């Protein structure tokens, strides 16, 4: 495991709660797996958000472009494919939100990665992971494993992981 990448989600100039929740989980996993946490932030004029994200990650991957001013699956996908191909994170986390639900399945198919959606639990298991998901409208939980080697892409249910305040990370800007 080298890097866990979190895709920051923001709307109308504000980072959405799921972003902080993903950081908490990414940090915890990163410490147990010896992986750095990076954050991908896309947008236009989102420097203040990048500053806010700095203490949460080892690396802030900021991509500013007019075409990224608002979320669009195709442009986000293009930029993410480039970033993920370059940096090869072992695990990428995206919110299971209107944005993540639109983006993740196609992205995983393009990169031929295993995707688990709507995760409420993520545990390392050897070189892989075991994730917890809800089935049948939440009446049953399932432990899901992967038949494929990494890298992995998970979408994370908003509210599933509590935000834990931790010491600041260097947040190097790229």
């Amino acid at each position, binding site marked *: 495991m080298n890097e866990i990448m979190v895709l920051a989600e923001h*709307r109308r100039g504000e980072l959405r709660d799921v972003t902080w929740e993903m950081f908490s989980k990414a940090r915890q996993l990163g410490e147990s797996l010896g992986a750095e946490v990076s954050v991908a932030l896309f947008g236009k004029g989102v420097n203040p958000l990048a500053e806010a994200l700095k203490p949460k990650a080892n690396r802030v991957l900021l991509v500013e472009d007019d075409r990224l001013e*608002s*979320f*669009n*699956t*195709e442009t986000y996908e293009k930029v993410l494919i480039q970033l993920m191909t370059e940096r090869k994170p072992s695990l990428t986390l995206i919110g*299971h*939100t*209107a944005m993540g*639900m*639109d983006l*993740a*399945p*196609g992205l*995983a*198919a*393009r990169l031929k*990665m*295993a*995707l*688990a*959606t*709507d995760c409420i639990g993520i545990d390392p298991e050897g070189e892989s992971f*075991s994730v917890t*998901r*809800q*089935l*049948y*409208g*939440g*009446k*049953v*939980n*399932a*432990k*899901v*494993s*992967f*038949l*494929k080697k990494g890298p992995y892409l998970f979408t994370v249910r908003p509210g599933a992981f509590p935000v834990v305040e931790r010491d600041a990370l260097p947040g190097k800007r790229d």
Partner: protein
Amino acid sequence: MNIVVCVKRVPETADADVTIDKSGKDIDRSGLVFDLNEWDNYAIEEAIALKEKFGGKVTVLTLGGEESNETLRKCLAMGADDAVRLTDPAFSGSDAYATAKPLAEAIRKIPFDLVLAGVQAEDDGYGQVGGVLAKFLGIPHASLVNRLEVQDKKLRAHRELEGGLEEVVEIDLPALLTIQTGINQPRYVSIMGIRKVAKKEIKVLGTAELNLKPEEVGLSGSNLRVERLFTPQVGEGAQMLQGNMEELSLKVLDILKDKGGLA
């Protein structure tokens, strides 16, 4: 406009007791009633409404055993023109990714302008087949669509976002959309209506007809596998209310007022 709609037969578990079977990997399906996945019901209604407005053909497509014929007949009774069922012992154990492969191969054989699917299935809730299928077909897609406007060779798809917001995306045809519940009011299907389509042919295709190798589908073609099921822990802070409807309503109202849920 020719439309293909992907549907799934699922157990109705909203009001049923769900127990885990002996294998620990599935639920006990005995005694459960099966029906068309709720999201797919809206997708098929949307397709039929578009056909009624613009003409063309609606083909309904599913992956499943013979029992899924019942689901396809419901869709035919609603107004779909053709039904195709993909079935093969090799499909067993398919995750969302391995399900999208045969669906894509089947759709390639059908002339289409638009593919619709439900946002997700009531049973496993992956919400993944639509997006993956669009990639396999090489067409653009939009998910969580709660309103649809057709303009020549383009669509304006309204996507439902969190917090009561929506965004509108313009998308060129052919395209794939995943349909959100509430986009329309699915029409009622009577038993007589289903009887009328009882003799209608359902085309059945397997891996051979779809030019797929058995190892590309099913568990061997999948990325995920369910290891075990377990019952969620009962969370703290739940308050069980008792009483008749009127008492319950008043109690709920009090709680809402108390917690600031009412302005």
